[in-house]
């Protein structure tokens, strides 16, 4: 592992606003409690926890979508990108794969259409889709193919950090393995770091080097995957392992 860090979070507390916007009837509800962790360059950090444990809130906080927080979120990366769980709503149905993949490049200011097309062709090949998919619409693709396109769109601008929120949970097991392999390959090739969110410990075990275990907005345990799986310290981790086995 390299010593550089792409993300450092120190003593993060975050709140959601609840209640009606008018009439000043808002209440704060704390969703994240005193989180501290970091993601090293080229590291795949797993984030486990049951639903409602604050996994998604944490990713929103990292992306700057939770305005109400205390503590520090230090980015050493430009524009972290995201891969979502649902491959059906993450691709714009009105546009072709080619347009979808060019869009992040356009947004990043790449003016030259030739250059963009070359980058798209490269990504299509790297994600195992091939050039014939450029002209297709998302509705013509299977769930696994859509997820490949989503990953290509997230990675095409070479962000240092990719947040993958349950990227394989909606896929069946054989496709899951293929997508995980693809994520692993891209990570090595482009020196990416992932924050890999999942409720599935098997998936975490396959791809991650280090894991955070979250429960009710708190990190209850963190450590290298092997260690955590062989010698879980916290009762909740043991419970998760028992449930996953």
């Amino acid at each position, binding site marked *: 592992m390299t010593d550089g860090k792409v993300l450092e979070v120190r003593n993060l507390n975050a709140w959601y606003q609840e209640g009606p916007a008018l009439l000043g009837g808002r209440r704060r509800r704390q969703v994240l409690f005193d989180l501290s962790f970091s993601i090293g360059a080229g590291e795949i950090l797993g984030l486990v926890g049951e639903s409602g444990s604050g996994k998604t809130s944490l990713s929103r906080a990292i992306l700057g979508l939770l305005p109400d927080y205390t503590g520090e979120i230090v980015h050493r990366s430009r524009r972290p990108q995201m891969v979502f769980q649902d491959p059906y709503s*993450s691709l714009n149905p009105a546009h072709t794969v080619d347009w979808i993949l060019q869009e992040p490049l356009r947004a990043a200011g790449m003016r030259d259409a030739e250059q963009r097309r070359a980058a798209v062709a490269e990504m299509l090949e790297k994600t195992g889709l091939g050039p014939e998919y450029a002209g297709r619409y998302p509705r013509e693709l299977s769930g696994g193919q859509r997820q490949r396109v989503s990953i290509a769109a997230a990675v095409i601008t070479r962000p240092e950090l990719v947040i993958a929120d349950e990227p394989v949970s909606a896929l069946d097991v054989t496709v899951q393995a293929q997508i995980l392999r693809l994520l692993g390959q891209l990570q090595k090739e482009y020196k990416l770091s992932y924050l890999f969110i999942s409720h599935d410990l098997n998936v975490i075990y396959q791809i991650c080097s280090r894991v955070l275990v979250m429960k009710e907005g708190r990190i209850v345990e963190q450590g290298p995957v092997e260690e955590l799986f062989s010698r879980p310290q916290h009762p909740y981790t043991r419970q998760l392992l028992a449930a996953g086995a």
Partner: protein
Amino acid sequence: MKKKTTGINSFLISGAVLSALMLGLILLGLVWTPYSPTAMDGAAKFQPPSPAHLLGTDNFGRDIFSRVLQGADATFLIALCVVAVSCTLGVLLGSLCGYYGGLADLILTRICDSITAFPAVLLALVIVSLTGRGKANVIFALSLLFIPSFARLTRGEFARCRELNYVKSARLMGVSTGRILFRHILPNTLPVLLPAVTIGFNNAILSEASMSFLGIGVQPTEASLGLMLSDSQTYLQSAPWYALCTGGAVVLLILGFSLLSEGLQRRKDG
């Protein structure tokens, strides 16, 4: 989710054919009519349809076919302007309200609701009586009244799409808000918007005809389908073809666009 057009969409085809036919006649009317629509002929009053006068003549001996062509032009142009203006403004307002939400959205939605609570023609009467008669004022009044229907529809669609992951990713990529609104979201609202445009077009034709019928729309010397209908009712007994042919033109015009809209909707639902 997966949409494939299976079989032939008979609504879409018949609507397209009928609309194209009417559109062809309207374009024809812009450049050529068999007689001058205003040429009076005292000797040829109230002639029933014949090869010389395809749809007969009216109380001044004017050729009804020529007048229907010209009247349809006026009606069509007004409806086109109304839909263009109200759709553009409605989509603009609706997209901003739907995407941003908040207090401005709440207020604008309520204003739209209160406008919709009144019958369109009644409100148009009020506006025209304030601004004066004439084509431009009819267009202004109807455009204003048609904004809410487009705004409400667009607002709903944008509010739905705002939370979808592809819009979230676009924001993460740093795509500008204008581009998200009009390149990312707008194309996805077209399946809902297009049928609404055709329905709005029909309503505009009917509203214009109603207003001219009531004498506050297009003014005499010019022809308009509504105005002609208003004239023809006096002669319903003696010259029924006058009312039938004029009314028929309105019906065909609207039928074509209704079929088109129905066809578009069916294509959307798959």
